[in-house]
């Protein structure tokens, strides 16, 4: 399976992805085979937003655990995709549905509704959202900016809680 996938993936492309995302060679080929199995249209992209394999890998790279040798990398290098900030940014964009770099009350409500299901009334959800925003909001604009988002989660072990283990 892996060999079939790697034949479709050019070696230099793998190298580039490896550099960009930090995945190992075997991980990339494994994920490529996953990608092709998800790619129902067999046109190298997923769904209507045209996610190609590079984008696919870039997204997954957010969830790579931070390894020891990456921790004390020289700071001049560009931030790896799996850094704490990038992990947080990924989560932030999940809330920020309209991409205005702010989580508004409505956006938070929508996400909450998706998460908690039907066991909660709109009113309850609303007060939760209110409190959440109020707790995080420091500049008083009734929405959560990315900086406020980072601040609110500064005590959370994001590196651990936003990572999964990819098979080698």
């Amino acid at each position: 399976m892996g060999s079939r996938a790697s034949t479709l993936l050019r070696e230099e492309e793998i190298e580039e992805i490896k550099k960009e995302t930090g995945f190992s060679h075997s991980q990339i080929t494994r994920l490529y085979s996953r990608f092709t199995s998800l790619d129902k249209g067999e046109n190298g992209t997923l769904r209507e937003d045209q996610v190609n394999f590079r984008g696919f890998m870039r997204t997954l790279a957010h969830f790579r655990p931070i390894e020891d040798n990456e921790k004390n990398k020289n700071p001049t290098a560009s931030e790896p995709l799996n850094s704490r900030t990038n992990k947080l940014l990924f989560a932030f964009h999940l809330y920020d549905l309209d991409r205005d770099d702010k989580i508004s009350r409505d956006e938070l409500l929508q996400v909450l509704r998706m998460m908690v299901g039907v066991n909660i009334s709109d009113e309850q959800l609303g007060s939760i959202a209110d409190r959440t925003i109020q707790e995080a909001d420091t500049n008083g604009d009734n929405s959560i900016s990315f900086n406020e988002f980072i601040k609110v989660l500064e005590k959370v072990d994001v590196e651990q809680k936003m990572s999964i283990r990819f098979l080698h």
Partner: protein
Amino acid sequence: ARPLGGRLWSMLLCSRPGCVRGTWEWSYVQTPYIIAIWLLVASVAKILFHFSQRFITVVPESCMLILLGLVLGGVVLMASKKQLYQLEPALFFLFLLPTIVGDAGYFMPARLFFDNLGAILTYAVVGTLWNAFCTGFCLYTAKLLGVIDERVQADLMDFLLFGALISAVDPVAVLAVFEEVHVNDTLFIIVFGESLLNDAVTVVLYKVYISFVEVGAENVHTADYFKGVASFLIVSVGGTLVGLVFAIILGFITRFTKKVRIIEPLFVFLLVYLAYLTAELFSLSAILSMTFCGIGANKYVEANISQKSRTTVKYTMKTLASIAETIIFIFLGISAVDKSKWAWDTGLVSCTLVFIFVFRAVGVIGQTWVLNRVRLVPLEKIDQVVMSYGGLRGAVAFALVVLLDGERVKAKDYFVATTIVVVFFTVMFQGLTIKPLVKWLRVPRSTSRKLTINEEIHERAFDHILTAVEDIAGLQGYHHWRDKWEQFDKNYLSKLLLRKSVYRKSELWEAYQKINIRDAISVIDQGGNVLTSARLSLPSMASRASFPEVTNVTNYLRENGSGVCLDLQVIDNVPGAKVEEDTETHHVLAENLYKPRRRYQSHYSRHFMPLGEKERQDREVFQRNMRSRMENFKSTRYKHHKKERSLKKRRGSDTKDDGSDKPRRNVSSQDKDPMLVPVEPQVEKPLDPEKEEDVGITFVARKAETPKQRPKSVPAALDGCQSPSAVSPTLSSEASHLPWKGSVGLPPPCVSVEATKIIPVDLQQAWNQSISSLESISSPPAPAESVHPRVNALSRLGRSRPTSYTPPGSVVGSTSSIGAQVSQGFFHYPEKKKEEEEEEEGSTLQEMQPLMSSLWPPSSGRTRKPCVYLRSLVIPPPPGGSEPHSRGPTQL
């Protein structure tokens, strides 16, 4: 131990001439008496240890208890020349161990435990096997090499048996030491989880070896080894299954205990204990069974049982576990004194000490190396050091070694001595030094704080994200299975084990409410007042954004206050602060919150707890509303009558109150500026719980004594609800002095406000309103505009006329203090122009009484004279009743 103890006592008693044995029923009370004395000694010892706070931070409690045991044992030994008390295996395994394991299992942080289950299982199974075999073989080698003395008659099997029982890390010792060290959560759960789960391995190894020793090593066939492996699987898996079955039974039973709340905690204790005993009955791993019963049932039981039962379960379990732990360590000390059971061999002791330490370290490092290849968060080197060093042996090993058959295992006495030394060394030396070690290595400590609502939400979101990403990446990892389990739990288990009402609740909402309540309590605790906290704790208060400073304070408090505590033994990790906090909360709540009017009513039922606070409050609110409506109604009628007599009466009331000269000042201010009146008394009369209690009387309708009751009138209480907002413009200066006035813009969610909006014209209307206002309790409180101008006027009106009722202490729930405070402020009335009211009151009051007493039978205890009042209410609407608001201000 107990009969021996009895003999000791009778010996002591009879050693004196003329012994009084005949009158002493010693033999009758002997056993429970001695047990109680033991518990007392143990508990008092704990108190004494904690006298010196500095001392206890250096020396773990377990060390002190062992030392105490040594002393006690020495005393007893000197007194009777023979050791009377021993840590008996039956006592240990049937009573002491289950209490500790039950506590540990029930309060195990489940998520953390399952997050690290792989590592825990590895250390518990592989690690223990490794330790047992290596220690056994190496001791045998040492014996062959001649390091261990010839007198120790033991062959390979004996040493393997000894290795098995000495290698298991002991949950009691680990808990006792680690709970005081406060290492980070992951490290703690790994060490502690290992110590719990390795029980299965130890028990199986022990039993297998015992049987091998019994049949003789030469008779053991290869098949028997496989049987050993199979029995390990049966014992561990069987124990776990038994535990889970009992967990399901427990969850299912607590689903139906709504009517018998009082025995809810009993079910928890019984079923968890039965899980232990059942597993023991079938020779399965009892510790595993109990642990998984606790872990499994916790979620459902906690959701099903009442808050009171939850507290009961928590405190009882902690108390029992604490006592059991104390007794175990004292008995360990006492047992060590008994020389007759000992046989010392330096070679064996030192070899064992070295081996268990070395193999523990090697085992941990080796396993961690393998685990770190798989683990998401690798275990650091310092973690490994702490884990190796934290391999404490304890009472389990001791009880197992005492259980050995001296006939078959010739070297039993040597093993006993070695085990005692090992236990002492690990608990005393390692326990004493692990704290400095952890400090020195800068091991990340546990962070004691509770999650904010943001963290709650976002961490849930992270879980969802990770599950999705695993799905996308085609992995079936931990999150995949966790999600699968949650789905299963939600669709089947929770449906089966949770009450319907609980099942429908959202977890997030629960978490949100918990956070709110926590904030409210901490605000009160920090000298805040109920009004401020009420704003925070009421879910319907959507517009809190205008009070950012309050939230900041609570955030600050949350971070600095008492936080989450992993230590399973401790109820809170700052006991002193916690106790203080509790008492303070208690006092603050007792002073500020709603006071049940009929507190003299005692509850005799054994099967039912007193009516729920909520119901009682609802009922109370209903009655109050009824009463206040009557008051308003009456007040509209007084106005036309003369007021001569009121002057005199009011003086009487003033003298009755201890308010000395304050009343006169109030009066004058009232006369000048009626708008300020509701405020001033508040300033001058700070909250006085005692007085408030006095206020909490109800409904006195004696005509002659009416004036005395009048100061604490219902309208005053009504004012309490209304005046803060009513007089808001003039409040600003007071607001700076009185924190509870800072909230002027937002009236407290006070039912009375709603209830008094409309003036009743007849009883039927009043009745309907009471009911509707009752309903309004459940619905969100009225926003700022709820203070009707009429209410404002009415409140002033009400103040100006005497009444026959006294407010029952306060208003409703969280806002009660305001009502109470204001009502106290309203002890005094303008002394002029009110005489005519008195007249009317007298007559109307008389009319009203019979009906009132029938309406409020409980309060009739205070009603001394019947009167007919309500009748007049029903028939003609009061002349001034329709437009009191127009008249009120002018009158003032």
